[in-house]
């Protein structure tokens, strides 16, 4: 049959390349994402005790992977509500899941310069072992997938762009900044520590800081954070695939 001959991820890379081009044309906004993180790290270096700098660097990478969700939310909603380009792509052989993930990958390219730059800074300040580097990559991929999935799913719930901005900014900055992403878990209220270990950005940050040797976690805490991150990554990406198919037709 016709539909069955269409692979589920048909068009993924072509659409990701489309979104990447869109993002790359907005080079000022890419420059500003780098700049914001660099300014932040500069002040940590200037004002905080030196031992906190690596925390801020790792946190900055995790945070950058997480706020991708905010950009996915805004972008997906914008090209649907304002441009109606979702109609062009859904009424086409491009699969809805490729549309969702392609957007996540495309938006990721706008944050790659930040991620690479901060990664190099981290390596200079606090050299990483191969294992730590590998885990860093896995955590960043997990956080990016969680954030993109969340951003895409939420984008479908809005009918009006004006309503979105306050929510998306609040959501991603609240969870990306307040919990211990940029600072040690020990500075967070003890009774809230389990919560910090299951929230994606702080769970990812805690694991990284543990592997790099910045943070000492109990075996139970490591297992909690790792399990939470893995389950959230799987659940949210599967949910986003399911949701992208469902919302590719209104009223379904």
């Amino acid at each position, binding site marked *: *049959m*016709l*539909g069955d*001959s*269409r692979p589920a991820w*048909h*068009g993924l890379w*072509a*659409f990701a*390349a*489309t979104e990447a*081009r*869109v*993002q790359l*044309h*907005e080079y000022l906004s890419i420059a500003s994402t780098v700049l914001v993180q660099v300014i932040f790290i500069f002040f940590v270096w200037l004002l905080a005790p030196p031992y906190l700098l690596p925390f801020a660097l790792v946190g900055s990478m995790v945070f950058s992977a997480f706020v991708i969700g905010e950009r996915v939310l805004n972008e997906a909603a914008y*090209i649907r509500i*304002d*441009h*109606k*380009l979702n*109609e*062009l*792509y*859904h*009424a*086409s*052989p*491009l*699969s809805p899941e*490729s549309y969702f993930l*392609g957007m996540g990958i495309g938006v990721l390219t706008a944050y790659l310069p930040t991620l690479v730059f901060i990664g190099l800074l981290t390596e200079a300040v606090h050299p990483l072992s191969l294992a730590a580097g590998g885990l860093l990559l896995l955590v960043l991929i997990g956080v990016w997938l969680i954030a993109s999935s969340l951003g895409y799913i939420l984008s479908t719930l809005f009918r009006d762009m004006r309503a979105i901005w306050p929510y998306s900014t609040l959501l991603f900055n609240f969870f990306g900044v307040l919990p211990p992403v940029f600072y040690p878990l020990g500075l967070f209220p003890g009774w809230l520590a389990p919560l910090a270990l299951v929230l994606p950005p702080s769970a990812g940050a805690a694991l990284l800081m543990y592997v790099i040797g910045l943070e000492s976690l109990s075996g139970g805490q490591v297992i909690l954070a790792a399990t939470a991150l893995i389950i959230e990554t799987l659940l949210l990406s599967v949910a986003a695939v399911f949701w992208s198919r469902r919302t*590719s*037709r*209104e*009223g*379904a």
Partner: protein
Amino acid sequence: MPNISIEVGVSSNLHPPTTDLAVSAHGMRKVYHTRGHPAVEALRGLDLTVKRGERVALLGRNGAGKTTFLKIASTLLLPTAGTLEIFGLDAVKRPEEVRPLIAVVPQEGHPFYHLTPWEQVYTYLRSRGFPRDVARDRTESALKDMGIFDIRSQLNVTLSGGQQQRTMVATVLATEAPLLFLDEPTLGMDPFARRGVWAALRKLTDRGSTILLTTHYLDEAESLSQRVYIVEHGHVVAEGTADELKRRVGGTVRVTMPEAGAHPADYESFGRIMAGDGVLHVITEPRRVSEILNLALSRGISPTVGPVTLEEAFLQLVGRAIEEDAR
């Protein structure tokens, strides 16, 4: 101009099944439910068919249900009830089978602001699965057909409204999909651009594509489409060729005179009277024109004579449907 063959995009084995009907919709109903608002019945048992290779226009007042139908037919909206087959495939139950065969120009859409027209068309073709060289050739000819090849490297955000709309139409026409849905494709376009779109659409149907479009430009519907459907309040009130619809309103000739001083009652026996905007129209047959002219001239009124347009037929047919609805 490269020799372009019809293909669906994913791979060459995806050709529409061989049925005579591209679109076959029966008893289509759509009720919109919005929290805090009364339900809106946008389609009330709409029946519509489009033959393979046909150009059909869907006409109707604002809110008549045209976009709703186009969205349902293009698998973007779930109907409340009714059956819908696209090339014989069940578009309600298996939208994913239909999607490779169609392309859509949404009403009042915009291209990516941060792409150029060239990138817009090219990347869209790539994401539909066309190989690079085919995508490149088609992008070039679609941009030329739409008269935007010269501005192909400008960011879309810097283009005028009509140029952006041309980019949207170029994006979709370049797919040469077997079935194209175009919701007010020429909105905001100048007369030259509109004719460019008409020519491109004719070329596509000559090559085997099928086109269902909506428009509020009735001259466009008349010169472009082989058949029109008039929709009012969610159902079809008239269907046929433009000439057939004109004949249904009583005549092919229109005598127009200023309303001031002209008494409708004097002309009722000659045909159908339409008044408004300070003028009085008498829709009639050619053989009665001289009588009307003589009568009007004798009362110091100077009428003009012209052919009945599809617009007049539309006003009449929809007007009747509104009256019947009110009853």
